């Protein structure tokens, strides 16, 4: 549920906080990854003239702009960007052809032009790398298999690119005609490191629209992610080196070592924080409201700690988010999940807008140094080297892949290397000691604009034209899941046979480890759970939601309700949530079959039930057999629409012994053919229902608002609304119309079962 934009949102949230914090404090933080804030208006300049005026009358109406200036401007910017976003979604056709990033940049350009003419300063551009890497969909990456490839592409590819570009640019610089002879090799290398950083933001925008096949997507994406680690290291290394007169081989080795520390350290921290978060949320069942907070704060913490050690914060956040998604998702309540998801999406959306917006603005407002030769060649080389790089790398790696990348894939990979905000950030934070900084900045912006606009717009038709393998967005069905799992097991077996330890084997091992150890620790009530069961739960949940969303009068059949948690603990009961309710029903039903029997006997004292327990037992037994026989039968009824084949169980009150606290209040406008015995106000006893075999519909007990109503008044309302078939305890059970019920409904209500 922390789906698309999970980690992104957290990143974003963090960055928004950063902006606001910095804004209000008005200071410029010094971070290793060079966060710069452009000239910023100090907030506290607004001196109140208020005291002076005291000798005059109390001013009725004052305006104190500087006081609110910073937050005000930020808010305005955000609003403006959001309006822009609304604006071009009005014209749907545009968004098909032109990726959003382009449009945003254009608007930014316009606004920047406006601002420039008015000589306004652009607001703070917080250029921390993290800020830009927000839109990371949490693809569940088949990590083991793809990891190495992604790694390969990212590391080697980036290295290849930067060195290649750097050297060729240096060669160009030698040509006097361009007048850039003063750029030495180190500076060139530095610049090229900046340029070769592929930007996930832009890429994401484009690729998602085009929906290329997953392998491609994963590789490009992973490359972007790991890019960060590489780029940062390179950047630091080169900038360090650029200031040094002499480069020694030792430094190169140190650089390499540093890279590993940065990358792996980032990941380690991320995973660590993810685990801590998961562990924490295990205990938050009583404090549901602050669960989203944990998610965000832990991500932020991961980021900060990573920054502390100057390791890749992006990697940290990404891995943290991935880990959290998997484990935390199980622990938090449904509402927290929804909250998290929505906040993330919102924040991610804003930030995306803002980034490109700023790009546009800053483009106009900074002083540019333009050098035709250098810039054009930069463009050329960027393109060429990337293409070459991809080519060579795929050649090397293809033998290791089961399904090799073909030419079209490679083209997609190469063409999809859009530069974006990362490069922008890095360029901006170049130390001023580099003489040609402006040139670099200009060149970077040029490259970004070029790639985003040209490549971004053209990539879609191109990909369609050359038919890159597309992905199939599968509808998730339980079938597919089952079969896939089967195949995985098969493959693991076959690989065993062949003596090969490849990805299935590792995946298998990991899953076992996961189930045995990790889940127990990190998830409340963690049990080994197969993906089949997980998917099944999810699908049932979806069904339940769908059904309950439909507002029709006679809602037919709830989905088959399977007990998914053998122990329904009371905490679950107190969930104000539908699905949990439905989930529990079946379980409760089955358990309570047996409980009833005992309770019946115990009951006698309290409420004299005229029926003898025996009759009841008979009925219960019949009930049970009917249920059992129902299941296979219901599938043969072909005239019943699909949904009807499920068991329908009105979400009755859960018959849980520790039931005191939880009652569900049903505002029930739909009739349930439920039989509720109301011998008295207090004691009610669900009876197995009699089916009205005439109807093919099972009106579902509509669960309206679920609140905890610790009272028994609810049932009073029910009793009034229950029109038909109110089964009184007093009545005899001699009717034998139970034989062929098509469905079963029972309203088990056991207020007094605890007695």
């Amino acid at each position, binding site marked *: 549920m922390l789906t698309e934009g999970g980690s992104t949102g957290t990143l974003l949230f963090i960055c928004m906080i950063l902006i606001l914090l910095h804004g209000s404090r008005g200071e410029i933080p010094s971070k290793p990854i060079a966060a710069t804030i452009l000239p910023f208006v100090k907030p506290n300049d607004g001196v109140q003239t208020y005291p002076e005026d005291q000798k005059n009358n109390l001013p009725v109406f004052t305006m104190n702009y500087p006081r609110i200036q910073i937050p005000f401007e930020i808010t305005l910017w955000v609003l403006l960007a959001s309006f822009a976003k609304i604006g071009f979604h009005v014209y749907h056709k545009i968004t098909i052809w032109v990726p959003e990033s382009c449009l945003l940049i254009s608007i930014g350009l316009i606004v920047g032009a406006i601002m420039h003419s008015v000589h306004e300063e652009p607001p703070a551009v917080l250029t921390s790398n993290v800020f830009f890497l927000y839109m990371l969909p949490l693809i569940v990456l088949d990590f083991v298999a793809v990891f190495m490839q992604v790694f390969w592409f990212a590391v080697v590819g980036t290295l290849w690119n930067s060195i290649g570009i750097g050297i060729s640019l240096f060669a160009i610089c030698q040509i006097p005609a361009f007048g850039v002879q003063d750029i030495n090799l180190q500076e060139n290398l530095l610049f090229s490191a900046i340029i070769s950083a592929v930007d996930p933001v832009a890429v994401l925008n484009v690729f998602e629209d085009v929906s290329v096949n997953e392998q491609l997507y994963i590789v490009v994406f992973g490359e972007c992610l790991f890019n960060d680690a590489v780029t940062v290291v390179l950047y630091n290394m080169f900038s360090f080196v650029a200031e040094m007169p002499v480069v020694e081989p030792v430094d190169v080795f140190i650089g390499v070592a540093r890279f590993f520390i940065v990358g792996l350290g980032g990941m380690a921290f991320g995973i660590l924080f993810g685990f801590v978060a998961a562990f924490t949320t295990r205990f938050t069942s009583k404090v549901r409201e602050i669960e989203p907070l944990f998610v965000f704060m832990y991500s932020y913490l991961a980021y900060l700690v990573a920054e502390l050690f100057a390791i890749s914060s992006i990697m940290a956040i990404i891995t943290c988010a991935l880990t959290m998604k998997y484990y935390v998702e199980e622990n938090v309540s449904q509402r927290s999940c929804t909250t998290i998801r929505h906040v993330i999406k919102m924040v991610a959306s804003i930030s995306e807008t803002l980034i490109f917006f700023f790009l546009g603005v800053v483009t106009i407002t900074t002083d540019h140094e333009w050098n035709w030769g250098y810039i054009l060649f930069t463009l050329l080389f960027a393109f060429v080297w990337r293409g070459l790089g991809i080519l060579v790398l795929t050649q090397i790696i293809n033998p290791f892949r089961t399904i090799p990348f073909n030419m079209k894939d490679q083209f997609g990979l190469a063409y999809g290397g859009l530069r974006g905000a990362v490069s922008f950030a890095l360029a901006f934070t170049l130390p001023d000691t580099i003489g040609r900084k402006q040139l670099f900045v200009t060149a970077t912006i040029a490259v970004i604009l070029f790639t985003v606009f040209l490549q971004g717009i053209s990539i879609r038709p191109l990909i369609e034209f050359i038919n890159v393998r597309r992905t199939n967005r599968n509808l998730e069905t339980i079938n597919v899941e*089952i*079969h896939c799992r089967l195949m995985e097991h098969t493959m693991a077996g076959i690989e*065993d046979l062949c003596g090969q330890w490849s990805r299935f084997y590792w995946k298998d091992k990991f899953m076992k480890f996961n189930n045995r150890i990790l889940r127990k620790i990190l998830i409340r009530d963690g049990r080994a759970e197969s993906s089949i069961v997980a998917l099944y739960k999810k699908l049932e949940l979806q069904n339940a939601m769908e059904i309950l969303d439909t507002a029709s009068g006679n809602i037919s059949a709830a989905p088959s309700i399977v007990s998914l948690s053998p122990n329904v603990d009371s905490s679950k009961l107190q969930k104000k949530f539908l699905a949990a309710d439905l989930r529990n029903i079946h379980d409760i039903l089955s358990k309570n079959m047996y409980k009833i029997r005992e309770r019946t006997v115990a009951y006698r004292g309290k409420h004299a039930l005229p029926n003898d327990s025996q009759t009841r037992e008979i009925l219960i037994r019949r009930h049970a057999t009917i249920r059992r026989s129902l299941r296979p039968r219901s599938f043969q009824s072909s005239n019943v629409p699909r949904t009807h084949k499920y068991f329908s169980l009105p979400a009755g009150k859960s018959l849980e012994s520790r039931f005191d606290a939880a009652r569900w209040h049903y505002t029930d406008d739909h009739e349930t053919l439920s039989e509720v015995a109301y011998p008295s106000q207090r004691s009610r006893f669900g009876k197995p229902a009699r089916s009205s075999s005439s109807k093919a519909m099972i009106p579902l007990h509509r669960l309206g608002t679920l609140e905890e109503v610790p009272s028994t008044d609810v049932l009073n309302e029910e009793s009034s609304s229950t029109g038909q078939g109110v089964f009184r305890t007093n009545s005899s059970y001699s009717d034998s119309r139970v034989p062929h019920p098509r469905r079963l409904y029972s309203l088990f209500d056991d207020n007094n079962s605890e007695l």
Partner: protein
Amino acid sequence: MFILFESLDRDNRGCLSPDDFEALGGLAMNPIGGRIMEAFFSSGQDTVDFSSFVRILAHFRPTDRNRNKEGAQQELPSSRTRKLKFAFQLYDMDRDGKISREELLQVLRAMLGLQVTEEQLQSIAERAIQEADLDKDDAISFDEFKKSLEKTDIDTKMSVSFLK
């Protein structure tokens, strides 16, 4: 591949018997290990000779895809079908051409083991059949099986690169 065969063939008889398979610990632990083994021993034979061994393993060769202009997942239709057939056979132990609910249940039980109760298994199986069973005969035929997996990338899933 022959080397592999030989290494498996412990008693050097030139063919494999069930014990040889069972000697592979991993396979024994595999929930459907038994079924995989059965797939090798087709039609009641007790031993697997080299050619049948190879033939079965050939199912798992990665396929070369021919792509045409439509960009659909076109590959040699036989290989994908062959893979699917193999998978189907893993379910369909009695070889009647259909996966009945019972067979599905067995597989599910083997895979899910102790994680779920019997009822849950039933429900899962029931749902699975509902989703796939188009002619409502309460069993999944091979065509229905194929159809339910038409969008899935079988080739990636069922290929061992070693076997190229």
